[in-house]
């Protein structure tokens, strides 16, 4: 009965819907970028646009949830020393079977590197993509906001750089969350059911 619920129902919903949307955005986005042809250009544009709005809605909802519940504190950067010990662990300790330097608590459910990674993801990379994406989408109306001199290529480049950042984040995220838990796929199960699977 002493199970700790690390992830509320909302967070799990947020995580998985975001995951699906990000994969959808990447697949359609790189088609629009001209990397391959899959769904057809117009279809890709339509899906990309719909998913963009849903994702932005979801982001706002999550922002609201985190501020009202106070859970936003989970994403405050840790002090430099804890961070450094975490980096050391991943670079050295993990190979030597050293103990995990971070002790997880309900109020501190993410390790220092996670906190930093998710903070950068939600507060830097995502807004960059969404802002550049909204500009991209409303390219037609740039003259109304005094942007007529801006090149679409610049906005497209920023948007593409953001997409590559997300695409690079995914393998690291998958690797660390799927292979570093004590129980096999412990974190995956946690993100589905909300709590750790207690042994015995």
């Amino acid at each position, binding site marked *: 009965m002493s199970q700790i619920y690390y992830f509320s129902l909302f967070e799990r919903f947020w995580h998985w819907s975001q995951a699906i949307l990000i994969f959808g955005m990447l697949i359609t986005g790189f088609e*629009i*970028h*001209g990397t391959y*042809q899959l769904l*057809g*250009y*117009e279809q890709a*544009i*339509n899906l990309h*646009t*719909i998913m963009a709005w849903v994702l932005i809605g979801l982001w706002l909802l999550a922002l609201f949830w985190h501020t009202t519940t106070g859970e936003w504190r989970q994403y405050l950067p840790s002090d430099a020393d804890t961070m450094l010990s975490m980096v050391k662990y*991943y670079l050295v300790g*993990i*190979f*030597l*079977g050293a103990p995990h330097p971070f002790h997880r608590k309900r109020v501190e459910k993410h390790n220092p590197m996670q906190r930093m990674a998710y903070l950068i993801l939600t507060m830097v990379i995502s807004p960059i993509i969404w802002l550049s994406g909204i500009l991209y989408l409303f*390219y*037609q109306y740039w003259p109304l906001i005094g942007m007529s001199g801006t*090149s*679409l*290529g610049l906005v*497209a*480049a920023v948007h*593409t*750089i953001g*997409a*590559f*950042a997300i*695409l*690079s*984040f995914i*393998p*690291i995220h998958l*690797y660390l969350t799927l*292979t570093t838990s004590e129980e096999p796929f412990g974190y995956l199960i946690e993100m589905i059911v909300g709590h750790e699977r207690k042994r015995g």
Partner: protein
Amino acid sequence: MYSRNCCTLPLVSLLSLLSLLLFTVALPAAEEIIKTTADHTKFDELQQTFNSGPEVTQACLSCHTEASKQIHKTKHWLWKFTHPDTGEELGKQTIVNNFCGAIETNYARCTSCHIGYGWKDNSFDFSSETNVDCLVCHDTTGTYKKFPTGAGHPPYVDKPFPPKSKKIWKAPDLSQVAQRVGKTSRKTCGACHFYGGGGDGIKHGDLDSSMTNPNQTLDVHMGTDGLDFTCSTCHQKEGHDVSGSRYITQAKDEHGIDVPGRDDNIRSTCESCHGDKPHPVTVNNKLNDHTNKIACTTCHIPTYARGGRPTKTWWDWSTAGRMSNDGKHIKTKDAQGYVNYVTKKGSFEWGENLVPEYAWYSGNIRYKQLDEKIDPNGVVAINTFEGSYDDPDARIWPFKVMRGKQPFDKGNNTLVTTHLFGKDSDAYWKSFDWNRAIKAAMDAGNADYSGEYGFIETTYHWPLAHMVSPKEETLGCESCHAKEGRLGNLSGFYMPGRDNYYWVDLFGWLAVLGTVGGISLHGLGRLFSKANRR
């Protein structure tokens, strides 16, 4: 009572059905009568035998007193257009083209498409009212045809054309034709505009005889199985001045739908009926967004020359003049049966279902003037036009580009006119001597000729506006938004799907590969160290 009702009801409905049937059958005939208020067969002026075209015009003018004066002001009559910006004299009278060159000294042949009678040389009287040809536009019988070498006159006796051939051009019954005049039709406009450049479909690519009675698939507006537009449904204006000239094209009509009293009343742009935001708004509104930079025709004319008639795409005059060993004219055909060589005109290439070429176009076409210097080592653009991505008035337009080789003045580095047609021995089609043919034409036009000629490759752009396809066949996004798309040659702007920044993509993919490689190494290291620890 009850039983009677049950018998009368079917009878009533049968009668009403019958009357409905009768009514629908009678409807077209009734419409036919109310379309016009004048029956020209009843006009006394037309109850006579006419011996010539001008005599018919005389009769027309007795009621339509201002008609010729109106025609006199138009390009149809003057074949002249003074460009308001440059002051350049354009129009068929002066322009050198890459079909049969120019009209100078070739009048009688070229002016078989003039809206007048008798323009056979420089002395033509442009103020003559009776020399206006009413019938060529207003004939409804289909029997009135100008004779190919008649300087605008129809044949007055049955005559063969080509000369000495068995193809007989019948002389029309002028009083029959005059009594049956009506509105212009695809056929009357097409009599000249479908045959420009010397034959069916040669010149435009989007106008040929298949457009006389097209179906909707060929032209969604003019299709006889649909809207059945005539040319003048769009190309209309007051006082015989037809709108929609190429010399200053309205490349972008920001008036949108024309409302009487408010707008310019020019119906020859797509926007004047469809507005500038004509597409239904879906998840994306990109099609409507595109109207500021993409002409409607760019997507809605997916291919041209698709009515079963080919259009000429290449005309090489430098090969003209070859004879067979026994001194006879040569005529050869390509695999499809299209003539690809004739002694008089040189070599041709033809095309059907052609993909247009695209260019930024603000509507201002500039033509190479006869006295303008050309680069003898380059390809000479007979017409160029303004427009770029940065030009707010310009949009991307589709073009047929006519290419070929034609004579030029090697000494002066200018284009030349050539005297092709005529009974005199200076005419190229008599002597096959370019030097004489060029000298005769240049002298006649008071132009300077050095006496030395060569051949130069030229291009001539024709904006496409007809053969608009049904929406199902319109181009999709990927026709252009692709690496090898239709707009591959246009520069100065970033187009998603076509363009990317090399360095962004290179570093992006390196970053992705780097992380995948990094975690793979990291994972392998963990596996090895774990195995070692055991």
